[in-house]
């Protein structure tokens, strides 16, 4: 599995962004959100039980992620049409404020090393990727275990909290820590 400090792989995936079939699909790549942090979280299959609750929980916190300059991206190996059907079908997903990407060729999941060898689907993995495209956090749970979006926010806060101010200057130190 891809670890901390490694470059997040490139991708070009179709995402579902709306219930309206006319404008439901949009292409997303590693360059779609310049200057932003990315939070990519994977789930095994659409239309299963744990998933909608968890995805909706991320959706509820979307504003919190946005305020932290982070773009949420949900991913599974289902096709964009399945995502679209699920989005329209499930009430808690209807107004989902972030794209659901389709890794239908399993290339991204494979590159990340999160394709479950038994089930052949993505494991429940979460990656925080910094604006430079570097993996800064990895979080994977067993297929049956849900995860906590609050924990992801907490980690994002910690990653973004640098003491950038020269006020933090200590005697004998005269440079700004971060450029």
């Amino acid at each position: 599995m891809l670890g901390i400090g490694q470059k997040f792989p490139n991708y070009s995936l179709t995402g579902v962004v709306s219930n309206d079939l006319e404008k439901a699909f949009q292409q997303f790549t590693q360059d779609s959100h310049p200057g932003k942090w990315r939070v990519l979280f994977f789930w095994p299959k659409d239309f299963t039980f744990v998933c909608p609750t968890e995805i909706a929980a991320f959706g509820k916190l979307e504003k919190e992620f946005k305020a932290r300059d982070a773009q949420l991206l949900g991913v599974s190996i289902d096709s964009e049409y399945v995502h679209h059907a699920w989005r329209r079908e499930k009430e808690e997903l209807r107004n989902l404020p972030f794209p659901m990407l389709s890794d239908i060729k399993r290339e991204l999941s494979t590159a990340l090393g999160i394709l479950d060898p038994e089930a052949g689907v993505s494991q429940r993995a979460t990656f925080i990727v910094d604006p430079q495209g570097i993996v800064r956090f990895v979080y994977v749970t067993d297929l049956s275990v849900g995860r906590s979006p609050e924990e992801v926010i907490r980690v994002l806060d910690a990653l973004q909290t640098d003491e950038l101010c020269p006020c933090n200057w200590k005697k004998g130190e005269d440079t700004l820590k971060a450029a």
Partner: protein
Amino acid sequence: MSLDTLRDSIPDYARDLKLNLGSVLAAPGAPGLNEKQIWGVAVASAIASRNTEFASRIETLAAAHLDEAYLNAARAAAAIMGMNNIYYRFLHLVEDAEYAQMPARLRMNVIGNPGIDKLDFELVSLAVSAVNGCGMCIVAHEKQLRKHEVSREAIQSAVRIAAVIHAVAGVLEHASAARPEVAAVAA
């Protein structure tokens, strides 16, 4: 409302401040600073001086000299230094070096990406630190500016603005509280 009208609302007992305000906010009275820096420092110092009415008047005047990004950066400097001056002043004063080893765990990302020239943001932050009275913050920001070859004259100009703005904010606050008709006339 013009700067003159604003100056006219300063009571006579503070005539020195009235005259100083006129001088430090004009280029000849603020050597080393360009117009944007003058007004950026003025806005942030006014916000830091906690007289909301005066601060919004200064903001209105500044809008003629600053674009929205600069105006926002000045507000952002007042905001973030309102936190940092308190936190780091504590670290500087507490006489227990252990605290400085503990991560602040405070977001201050705007400093890394203020939306205007970083040195301008430093200059404005220095002025706010002067208003808020954090000694080591003053030392640190002044060092940064000097390291990047900002002149002492320019730094002094920024602090002169901060000092006058702070004093005027206090006087106008008192004047409007003591004599409501002064506030009415000034408005």
